[in-house]
Structure formats: structure tokens, C-alpha cells
């Protein structure tokens, strides 16, 4: 099981990291600016909408926009941190509970052994 878990982690890291190497950088656009890469798929879909329906006007705007990319990454990091914190708490509690249980079992077994020896 432990081996399988490590293999799973390695596979996820590879799946995430390899595209960074494998995907060729896009050629520079006509304006000489390098093309963008690893943009959001959501944004590309938005682009596709404007291609299909050039006259479509969004009829509602977000109430609150992150003031900058930094603020946006702050909030995304906060979201991930909240989630990771909860998972870390559970894992820590679970590992400790497991260890205490095993220790208690071992002590109980030793006590039984002692009683028999007496």
C-alpha cells in the first residue's frame, strides 16, 4: 500500500510537471510579442464565444473583481490552504489515533503476559 501511494504521488507530479517541458512555446505573434501559453481554458472558452457570437454582450458583470493578479492568487492560495489545513488535521489526528490504539493494544498484551507470569 505504501509503495502504491508513493507511485501515485510520483505519477501526479509527473503528469503536472511534464507538460511544462513537453509543450512547445508558441511562436511570436505578428506584433513580435511571444504568444501566450498555459492560459486558462475558461478564458479560451470565453474567446470562442466571442468568435461564434461576436455580437453577444455579457449582461451581468462580477460584483467584485480581484484588484490584481496578485490578489487573485492570494485568494486561490487561501482556498487551497483552507482545504489542505482540514486534510492535514484529519491525517494527523488519524495517524495519532492509530498509533495510540496500537500502543494500547501492545500494553494490554504485555499486561496479560505479566499476569500469566505471576
Amino acid at each position, binding site marked *: 500500500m505504501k509503495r502504491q*501511494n508513493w507511485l501515485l504521488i510520483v505519477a*501526479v507530479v509527473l503528469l503536472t510537471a511534464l*507538460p511544462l517541458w513537453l509543450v512547445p512555446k508558441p511562436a511570436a505573434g505578428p506584433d513580435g510579442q511571444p504568444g501566450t501559453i498555459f492560459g486558462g*481554458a475558461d478564458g*479560451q472558452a470565453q474567446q470562442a464565444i466571442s468568435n461564434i457570437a461576436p455580437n453577444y454582450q455579457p*449582461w451581468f458583470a462580477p460584483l467584485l473583481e480581484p484588484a490584481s493578479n496578485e490578489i487573485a492568487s492570494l485568494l486561490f492560495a487561501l482556498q487551497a490552504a483552507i482545504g489542505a489545513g482540514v486534510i492535514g488535521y484529519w491525517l494527523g489526528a488519524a495517524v495519532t489515533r492509530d498509533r495510540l490504539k496500537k500502543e494500547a493494544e501492545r500494553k494490554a498484551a504485555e499486561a496479560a503476559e505479566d499476569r500469566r507470569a505471576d
Partner: protein
Amino acid sequence: MHIMEGFLPVEHALGWTVASAPFVVLGIRSVRRQLRERPEQRMLLGVAAAFSFVLSALKLPSVTGSCSHPTGVGLGALLFGPLAMVPVGLVVLLFQALLLAHGGLTTLGANLFSMAIVGPFVAYGIFRLARGARLSLAVAVFAAAFMGDLATYLTTSVQLAWAFPDPAGGFAASLLKFGSIFAFTQLPLAVSEGLLTVLVVNALTRFNAEELRHLPLFAGRRATA
């Protein structure tokens, strides 16, 4: 899978909101019932929600040269049933719509439908099928999370193609366009989500065997394993 604020025509936005609303009510009811019957499951529900929080915050690079994110709702669907993931998805989507301008209030119904309704139901269905076919737990969990993730993005493609049919090729051409943006990008990400879900289930079966015994994930275990 986030359709941006205002980017669905009014009637579509309303339609998806109406379609999602009953699932929200049923989902909240399902969570409350499960917590009332077994308050000790609170921790596991927290883990399932947290998993979705983490994964949907991580925009990962894909082989197509664009970025997208997993949804993480498959795990909870296997543990607590698909309905329980609707309120979890709602919290995630509201957080992102209100604070991050990612997704939106007008598209909340549509995004909820793809991420928190179709995804979990597909994951749950695939899991039941795979276990019925006597596949191992790890394989069944992987297949469920993988397919649930893909199903979410296919749903988004259908929603957009329906709202914005191609002037020349109609719905099909549009679906192909949105599908190629979302689905191909999502393939390796869905694999990652599947692997991570297996990882968490491994830990759960090791440390929380007692609590798992009462959950749908293991409901039919004695019969199949």
C-alpha cells in the same frame, strides 16, 4: 468549467438555475440527515469538502498548453452519495464567484449543474458499475473520479454549445469547438484527480475503516469483496 459571469443568455442562465435548485434542496437535506444519523461522520465530510476546495483551487498545466483545474467532488460522492456534494460544490463556486470573479452568480446554476450534479452522479454511477463488475476498490475509485471529472467538463461544453451554436455548423460544430478546449485539456487532469482520489481512499481505508463501514462506498462490500 467555470462559465464566466454574464456569459450565458438570460433564458439559459435561468433555466440552469431552475434545474439545479431542487438538487440544492435535496443535497442539503441529505447532508443534514447523514450528520444527524451519524455525527461521527462530520470529520470525513470535512475531508471530502476540503479535498474539493484544494483541487478546484489548483489550476494545472495540461498537454494542450492551457490550464484547467480538477473538481475533487468524486471523492465525496463515493463517500456520502452524489447529492451530498451539491452543497459542497455550491460553497466552492460561491467563494470563487463572489471573491474571485471566477464563474459568476448568473452562471452559478449552470456551473453547479456540471460540477456538483453531473460530476458526482457520474462518479457514483461508474463506481457502482465498476464494483458490480468486481473491479478492485482502487480501480473503481480511479475510474469513478476520472469519469466524473471529465463528465463535468463535457457538460460545460454542451451548455456552451447549446447557448452558442455555431452560425454555420450549429450545435455540433460548437460542441466540437468547446469540447476540444475543455475535454482534451482535462484528460491528464482527470487522471491526476483519479490518482489523488485513490490516494485519499487508501488513507481512509487504513485509518477510518470503522466510519467507512456505514458509508455507501462500502455498503455492498461484503457482497462483492
